[in-house]
């Protein structure tokens, strides 16, 4: 505790208000009908964490059934059908129910208006509607698991998805609904950033988290509708045989992949951009140093968002698209490396000559740097045409996107949860257990997924129930890693939840942050700020005279 308070301003906190957003209007009903962005953010956080738990259990089961070639989990035989359903549900839940809404809808909802000095988002009721759409989508997805099964993989490739039995139609409709939840969040955030900035806050005075969420929101608005229409077409194909994707009646299955990836590649950036945005907050705050290359990082967020729309064909190098398209998409794909690299180098530049303290959020930030570096560099293998032919559709790809999605986004997300936890709950968690949890997650993650690069380059295809005996040792090693990873996440969750039993002891600004959310009380009052804040200094300005003045 004493350690975590070391940046705490010498000036005493304002007297803690008796009423905050948590206890202002108690009762389940007031939560369920709330239009307070902070409460919606907290409800989203609970929701996505539950989804993460379910998806994580499926992940552990998938790894467990791959432990040996006998396909048993605790002595129960796992058939290929069950295995296929497990990895499908793992993917679909993690992508659509967890990662996509995780940072924007949970943390973004809570933090974005605070950072802008606003009372709420632009359309509070739309925000609540977005949450209930998410709940509806989640219920539909769970229903499709219970009353039937989906074994298509989260990508729903045709014609398998139009011909297999099971509740694929319900699942696609669930994802359709979740898509609109995402669109509403996106519309809300774009409008909020445009119209609700505090007086004095120009575009380049916004925290980098806001830049990241803003870029994400652009993608959510412009790409998600295409997912919506794609899933409608898929459902119509299943029910009415409209003949667009089904080759049997003159359709083209590769067209589905174009439609799907036109959304789902930008969706990768819906996942990673907010992760990068969190890291851009953590690094200057815990380095106590002015953000290096603020504008470069802000521009790189926007340019990544735009680039994300023109590279989707790299998922289809061997899928039967024309060779011209393959070459064009490969060339464009390499452009993604530039803004990603710019971000990476500027983060390192910010750490250089900083005053770096390794609190739990910063440990996650450094983990992110290492893991995302591996994720990004292995992406170069996959963008290189001749090498991709061998590596695509193998465990190499599985490992690559887990390094980006889990090693990137989820690590950043957990770091962000630790960072804003005092603000959200008014409590400090145990730094010691936070650090141990982070170490276990980092180790377990690498053991699980670094192994899979070797499996993949050796020629182990993905989505395989059976595998050749030669791969068994590596599979076993990867499965052991998943247990460590699971233990680390479990420990982290316990650590955070345990803090809720304590009295509210968190100071208003425990980390010495410079953005506006740290100027209000922890937890904030319902209307965020007692007085409309006016921006007096740019974010991440750690010059002593500026810090002293504020």
């Amino acid at each position, binding site marked *: 505790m004493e350690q975590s308070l070391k940046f705490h301003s010498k000036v005493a906190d304002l007297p803690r208000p008796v009423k905050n957003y948590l206890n202002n209007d108690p009762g389940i009903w007031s939560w369920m009908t709330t239009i307070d962005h902070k409460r919606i953010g907290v409800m989203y956080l609970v929701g996505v964490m539950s989804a993460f738990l379910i998806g994580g259990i499926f992940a552990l089961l998938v790894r467990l059934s791959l432990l040996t070639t006998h396909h048993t989990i605790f002595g129960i035989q796992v058939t290929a059908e069950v295995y296929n359903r497990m990895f499908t549900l793992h993917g679909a839940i993690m992508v659509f129910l967890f990662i996509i809404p995780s940072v924007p809808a949970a943390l973004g909802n809570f933090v974005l208006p605070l950072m802008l000095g606003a009372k709420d988002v632009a359309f509070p009721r739309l925000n609540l509607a977005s949450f209930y759409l998410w709940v509806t989508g989640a219920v539909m997805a769970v229903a499709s698991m219970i009353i039937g099964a989906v074994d298509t993989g989260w990508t729903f490739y045709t014609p398998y998805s139009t011909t297999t039995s099971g509740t694929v139609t319900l699942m696609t409709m669930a994802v359709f609904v979740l898509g609109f939840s995402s669109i509403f969040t996106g519309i809300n955030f774009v409008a909020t950033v445009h119209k609700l900035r505090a007086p004095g806050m120009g575009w380049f005075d916004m925290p980098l988290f806001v830049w990241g969420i803003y870029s994400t929101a652009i993608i959510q608005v412009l790409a998600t509708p295409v997912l919506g229409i794609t899933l409608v077409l898929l459902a119509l194909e299943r029910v009415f045989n409209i003949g667009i994707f089904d080759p049997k009646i003159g359709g083209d299955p590769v067209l589905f992949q174009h439609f799907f990836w036109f959304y789902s590649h930008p969706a990768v950036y819906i996942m990673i951009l907010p992760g990068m945005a969190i890291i851009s907050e953590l690094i200057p705050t815990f380095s106590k140093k002015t953000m290096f290359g603020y504008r470069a990082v802000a521009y790189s967020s926007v340019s990544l968002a735009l680039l994300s729309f023109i590279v989707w064909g790299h998922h289809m190098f061997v899928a039967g698209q024309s060779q011209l398209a393959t070459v064009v998409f490969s060339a464009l794909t390499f452009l993604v490396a530039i803004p990603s690299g710019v971000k990476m180098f500027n983060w390192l530049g910010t750490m250089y000559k900083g005053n*770096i303290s390794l609190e739990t959020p910063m440990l996650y930030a450094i983990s992110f740097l290492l893991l995302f570096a591996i994720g990004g*560099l292995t992406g170069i293998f996959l963008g290189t045409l001749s090498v991709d032919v061998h590596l695509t559709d193998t465990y190499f790809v599985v490992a690559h996107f887990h390094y980006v999605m889990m090693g990137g986004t989820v690590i950043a997300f957990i770091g962000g949860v630790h960072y804003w936890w005092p603000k959200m709950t008014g409590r400090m968690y145990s730094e010691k257990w936070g650090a141990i949890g982070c170490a276990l997650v980092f180790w377990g993650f690498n053991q699980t997924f670094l192994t899979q690069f070797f499996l993949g380059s050796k020629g182990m295809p993905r989505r395989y129930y059976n595998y050749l005996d030669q791969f068994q040792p590596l599979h076993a090693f990867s499965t052991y890693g998943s247990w460590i990873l699971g233990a680390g996440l479990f420990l982290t969750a316990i650590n955070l939840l345990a803090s809720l039993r304590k009295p509210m002891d968190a100071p208003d600004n425990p980390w010495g942050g410079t953005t506006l959310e740290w100027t209000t009380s922890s937890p904030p009052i319902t209307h965020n700020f007692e007085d409309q804040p006016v921006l007096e200094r740019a974010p991440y300005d750690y010059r002593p005279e500026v810090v002293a003045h504020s």
Partner: protein
Amino acid sequence: MEWLRAMMLPAQGSAFAAEVDFVYMALFWLSVVLFIGIAFPAIYFAWRYRYKPGRVTPHQTHNTLLEIIWSVIPLLLCVGIFFWGLNGWMKYAVAPGEAMEIQVIAKKWLWQFEYPDGSRTVNEIHVPANKPVRFVMTSEDVLHDFFVPDMRVKHDIVPGRYTEVWFTPTVLGVHHVTCAEYCGKGHSDMQAKLVVDNDVDYAKFVETGGSEWEDYKMNPAAWGKLQYERKGCSTCHTLDGTKIASGGPSWKGIWGKMEKLNNGTEVLVNADYVRESMMLPSAKVVAGFEPIMPTFQGLLREHEIQGLIAFIKSLGNDPNGGPPAPTVLSLPPKPDQKK
């Protein structure tokens, strides 16, 4: 560094594989260097500039020159890698005109190969060494993917149209073919053997459909068991009396049995019925099963059919009646030599 390559990548079965591996290893070393270039500063800074109360950090907002440097250098690097990858990929993408053509039909969950002379094999391909061979592929149901790790080639197989891959095998022996696009229950069992033969062996294969044919003369049932495993029968028919979901009847104890059919009539399981079931599987379907079996007409050579009949017979009679099976297997005709 060969051991490192061998640790990460499969055996090299073609000249193309060696080329891909070279790029792969180059990228690997580049990645190692770049990773250290990122990880070392991250960890070093965290230690070197660790927190000291009261330390003042410099106010460095940006450095345009640095931004340009670390944008342009990666860009140039990426352009180089792109063209390097493109160069290798062009060889994969364009098959030479003189390549021998094998037609591939993929279906749930077996591979069927058709040679230019019209003869066909299932789940096993023989190709001559050091000659380019081109696979023209289509699917009968969902997406599949023809992946030969040793050759470093892979391409999706799309129903309703044809796609192709090609390579020039240089290493004799067996290589693994595997399905790399998710296709359902049997996805991971959709394997085939790619046998690279020398000219003599290949000529022999063309003549007989495989060297094991010699074994037939010794033990027809064992030959039949081989066909059972190789021709995809085992995907749907068990040998232990159990039933595979959306599969066919088990072969255990059916010889000589009167089977009820789904049209209400009965049929005696004998050589004629078994043969008919392979050629016209939908003609007489056993009650309780779906007419889902594909025809094997043209897929099985005569001696392979004979072997399968012998194998089913060897699995035993139905204990509850039916006339006993003939004890003497009539001599097989000369193997059907497809030209």
